[in-house]
């Protein structure tokens, strides 16, 4: 009874004002993270300015768990560039290198073929059925820089969602129980 009574007392002693202040600071942190993310999307011109490398198809250059910084400009797509693209019907973007470019005379439209450095064959097997080339609208960005190992956090949280819940749960508990 004593333990329960103490817990009830401590809950009652949380002032409404303090709770609101904490909620607002939490909201501010989340909102500023969102602002930074959207600003990055704007500046880099790509829907997804940072991606995590998930497969070994670009080894030894890009290992699983590296993150890539993307940039999309109106510059024409040229052979050798490392591009990130989406295949219709699949939601995971692929990061491979362009090995063939055919650019139309007048319209500037372009047919592109890609291949992973570590793959024996080009990507036609990965494209949608009957698709032989990629076009500009498939491409989300060019890789311009990279950092190793940072992406492992995302990979672990996606492949073992339990860790995500544990993390959020602990953070929530910390927020509630801290006294400032």
């Amino acid at each position, binding site marked *: 009874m004593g333990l329960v009574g103490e817990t009830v007392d401590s809950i009652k002693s949380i002032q409404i004002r303090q709770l609101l202040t904490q909620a607002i600071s939490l909201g501010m942190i989340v909102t500023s993270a969102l602002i930074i993310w959207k600003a990055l999307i704007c500046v880099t011109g790509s829907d997804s300015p940072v991606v995590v490398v998930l497969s070994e198809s670009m080894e*030894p250059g890009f290992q699983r768990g590296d993150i890539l910084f993307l940039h999309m400009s109106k510059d024409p797509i040229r*052979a050798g560039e490392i591009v990130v693209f989406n295949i219709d019907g699949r939601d995971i973007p692929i990061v491979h290198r362009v090995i063939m470019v*055919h650019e139309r*005379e007048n319209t500037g439209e372009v047919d592109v073929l890609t291949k992973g450095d570590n793959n024996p064959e080009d990507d036609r097997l990965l494209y949608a059925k009957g698709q032989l080339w990629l076009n500009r609208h498939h491409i989300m960005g060019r890789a311009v820089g990279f950092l190793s190992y940072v992406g492992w956090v995302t990979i672990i949280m996606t492949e073992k969602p339990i860790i995500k819940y544990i993390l959020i749960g602990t953070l929530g508990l910390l927020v509630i129980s801290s006294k400032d």
Partner: protein
Amino acid sequence: MHSFGYRANALLTFSVTALAFICAIASLSDNFSNQNPSAEIQILNINRFKKQSYENDEVSLTLDISADLESLFTWNTKQVFAFVAAEYETPKNSLNQVSLWDAIIPDKEHAKFRIQTSNKYRFIDQGHNLRGKEFNLTLHWHVMPKTGKMFADKIVMPGYSLPDAYK
């Protein structure tokens, strides 16, 4: 103020900031390196030049590629990806680039090389425009750093051409 939580938080923030700073500096240092790579490509032989059954021209050739890319390697270089592409113009397409051969150069010791090889990837046109076509062979290189910004450049070697008739 001195609880474990605060200290751990401060330590973590500081170390992440310091790491990010070091990565940025490492990347910047690449801008100061002097680079003067050189290369030469000869076409040894046109092996096959035909029209595929579904109407696109295809060429198979043997190349003699020699290059010295040692100056591209800095302390922040993880590997250099080099490839040779044929570039040409056709009535329908203002630019065609077809990669013929590529290699990953992992370190400075392997950066000066000479090889004779047939094209690794098929040289197929969109159409049948290749008879008598003049084209450039370019050697491109992409430097992939240990961290930071990647950069790329190329050497263009003009003046190659294909035979006027299928073979």
